């Protein structure tokens, strides 16, 4: 992982407040747990039927029946619980999920999120993403600021099929921490070494800049 990404993950880990129930999407979001203290009080949820996700295990120590939603062999901790898929999403939809960290293809300035389908290219199905994005109390995106071709992911409006409308509260990227406000994107922090013109260039929508010194991460 690049240095900017590591710092982004470390910064995103501070989203997690003591006592929260949290679902971490596959990929970058999963890595935030590495930045939490060992005794930090939090409940991690995996939508295939587990609360209290313990450390990932190597193949020779793994339990063939114990995976997370991304297929990684995980473990339990004292107080873990198993349940079926209906109970798992009951938790998500009924407001018991305090926070979800998700990846994104596109985020619009009104909080719309697209992260499951690129028509004609990528359409494997949304899995649990629509419910996580529609119903978690707080939806936070972790993503590179631009896609592989260098095109901005933060846009005035999404062009891809939506996952959820107006639900993204904040974005952690390798360039910045950005809030989604009723007035659109608002810069919160800049990654070290990124300039404001660089950020504006890489952002496909207006972005409000706070007065005074801009904190970095």
């Amino acid at each position, binding site marked *: 992982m690049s240095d900017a990404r590591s710092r982004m993950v470390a910064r995103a880990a501070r989203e997690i407040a003591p006592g929260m129930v949290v679902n971490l999407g596959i990929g970058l979001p999963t890595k935030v747990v590495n930045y939490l203290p060992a005794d930090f009080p939090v409940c991690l949820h995996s939508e295939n039927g587990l609360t209290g996700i313990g450390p990932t295990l190597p193949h020779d120590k793994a339990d063939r029946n114990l995976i997370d939603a991304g297929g990684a062999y995980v473990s339990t901790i*004292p*107080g*873990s619980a198993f349940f079926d898929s209906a109970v798992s999403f009951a938790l998500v939809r009924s407001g018991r999920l305090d926070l979800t960290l998700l990846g994104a293809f596109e985020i619009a300035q009104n909080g719309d999120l697209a992260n499951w389908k690129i028509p004609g290219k990528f359409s494997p199905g949304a899995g649990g993403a629509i419910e996580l994005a529609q119903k978690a109390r707080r939806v936070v995106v972790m993503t590179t600021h631009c896609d592989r071709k260098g095109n901005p992911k933060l846009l005035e409006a999404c062009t891809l099929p939506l996952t959820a409308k107006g639900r993204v509260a904040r974005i952690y990227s390798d360039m910045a921490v950005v809030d989604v406000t009723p007035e659109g994107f608002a810069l919160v922090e800049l990654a070290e070494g990124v300039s404001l013109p660089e950020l504006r260039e890489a952002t496909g929508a207006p972005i409000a800049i706070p007065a005074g010194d801009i904190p970095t991460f």
Partner: protein
Amino acid sequence: MKLPNKSTTLEEAVAAIPQGATVLVGGFGVPGTPFTLLRELARQDQRELVLVKNDANEAGMGIDHLIAAGQVRKLIVTHLGLNANAIAAMNEGKIEVEFCAQGILAERIRAGGAGLGAILTDIGIDTELAKGKQVVEMEGRPMLVEPALRADVALVHATTADPFGNLAYAATARNFNPLMAMAAKQVIAETETLVPLGGLAADAVETPGAFVDQVVELSELSQEYGIVRR
């Protein structure tokens, strides 16, 4: 990481119940009724309550204390057959009673806990229970819209709990408890035994702690929990 601790005192837990709250109460007859939480609710005297429960317990037991003290505005139940006091209060207009088919009450609560809007069912069609309910056609057949029932508070009785709020129930004391424990803003569980984290195996958990807000260990089991000698 470590799972958060939600154990608290009886008094503090019940103090979280506001006046006028809608309260789900576990139990089918005696088994699974949270008698101690109900006694404390009677003592703290929150009023204008709407109680949702399978039944109204028996005279002198459980929610009957709240009805007798005039704390209850409305009951949503499946039957009152064993409580003559509750039937009298209903007939005298002291409490409002809404009857629901037993399994549909279970499903409405479950739907509340599952974050759904409603279920569609043909149960009650051709009966009084259909009166005043929204009807939707599905493939030419009429179905009743039974709205999800989500409450301010749920009071449940567990046999075993851990401090995170993972719960397990005994025998037929399970009944409505796991459904109600998912379906309220504030879920309060009383437990006969509080074990340390890890004391309840992950596959023995019947209500995952993520749904539960407060856990109260019972210091003793009052007579109400015992065998009923009729």
